[in-house]
């Protein structure tokens, strides 16, 4: 991507970042992070640290949804308030396991792209489509196999953490699916808002992660998890086919 494209995306698809204290080293691109290989002994610590900061982003996004959209229906505000508290609890869960296993806050660089992408979107239906229905649904796909992997390795502490996280995330995706379905039914303009938000986020995500990082995804679609999260069987089939096609294209 050339410099002018990068500057253009920076202006149109990213908001300012959230506040972080001096313990955190904030980067803007995936390639600037350490990204330890799977075989490295500290790879899990880097993952816990990254995940902890992503949960902070999730909490900050949900909080902003409450602050920015005071006229949204009370029922969805309740769900968002619950999500804020869930993400806060996830931060503590990942901090605890990070520190128990020898890591510490600030050991690795962090990215705040989720917050910067989500808060650039100026409507609630678009934000929930990107944060909950896209980012968190990816989490639903990614966490399920990690639970079994941790169980197989005899790591019940980590497996229990992932199970708790997955249950919460399914709830977040579900309320967003319900809200988006109702919002698009009651106002067709919301279909366009969702589409525009997804396009904007997709471009921004690519500029942060790079195609190589996106192509390196190894997990498959968690069909049962997505059904529980309120996706229709057709949407789940489409997601699975799309994932398989991308993996085939990338050779992973």
């Amino acid at each position, binding site marked *: 991507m050339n410099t002018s494209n990068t500057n253009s995306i920076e202006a149109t698809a990213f908001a300012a970042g959230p506040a*972080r*204290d001096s313990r*955190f080293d904030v980067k803007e691109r995936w390639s600037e992070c350490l990204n330890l290989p799977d075989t490295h002994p500290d790879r899990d610590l880097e993952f816990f640290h990254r995940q902890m900061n992503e949960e902070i982003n999730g*909490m900050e996004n949900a*909080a902003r949804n409450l*602050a920015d959209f005071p006229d949204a229906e009370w029922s969805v505000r309740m769900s968002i308030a619950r999500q*804020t*508290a869930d993400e*806060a609890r996830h931060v*503590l869960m990942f901090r605890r396991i990070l520190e128990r296993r020898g890591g510490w806050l600030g050991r690795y660089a962090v990215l705040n792209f989720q917050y910067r992408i989500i808060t650039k979107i100026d409507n609630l239906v678009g934000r929930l489509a990107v944060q909950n229905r896209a980012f968190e649904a990816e989490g639903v796909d990614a966490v399920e196999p990690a639970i079994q992997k941790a169980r197989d390795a005899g790591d019940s502490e980590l497996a229990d953490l992932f199970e708790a996280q997955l249950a919460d995330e399914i709830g977040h995706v579900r309320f967003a699916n319900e809200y988006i379905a109702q919002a698009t039914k009651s106002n067709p303009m919301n279909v366009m808002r969702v589409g525009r938000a997804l396009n904007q986020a997709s471009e921004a995500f690519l500029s942060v992660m790079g195609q190589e990082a996106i192509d390196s995804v190894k997990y498959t679609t968690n069909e049962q998890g997505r059904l529980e999260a309120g996706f229709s069987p057709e949407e789940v089939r489409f997601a699975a086919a799309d994932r398989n096609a991308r993996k085939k294209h990338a050779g992973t």
Partner: protein
Amino acid sequence: MGLILREKAEHLATFRWLEVFLMETLARWVPTTPEMEVKVLMGRHIWDAAQHADALGKRTFELRAPMHYTLAPLPLHLSTMNELASVEDTTGRLQSVYDVILPGLAARYQQYLQNSDSLLDEPSFRVIEGILNDYARMRKESEEVRAELRETLVFDPERAERWSRQESAISDFVVQGSGATLAREASA
């Protein structure tokens, strides 16, 4: 003198406004407060405030007001709340919520209980007693965070005392006289 039914609904509707205000204030502060521990504390307590608002809003309906009936407080109390919510520094934000707003609200909830009847208004008592228990836990959790960050956060106790005096000096905070047939008027 005890509160009549309409006044009970107006009090609970005002408490609801204050809980939503607290939820939104914490929500604004989560991304703009640098210290992770403080962010997380506030993020967890957003859900507490939301649940309080929800329970109060359901109770207003039982008191013949609209579901989730919400009334802004009187102007003096409103301006004090806005001032407390405009604090920019982390220590000030902690003091504002946990040393001033929550104790101030707790005193007003206690006042409500003193002016109502625990039998006639038992469901309101249950809601408010639950809120007061939550407040005690929330303040304890804020003390734990302050202890964890004692090396980096320096508090000015005089500031919190000044705010508390300002808040507690306001006795009347509920807009009254919104009508004897509250539900009918509000839904008209």
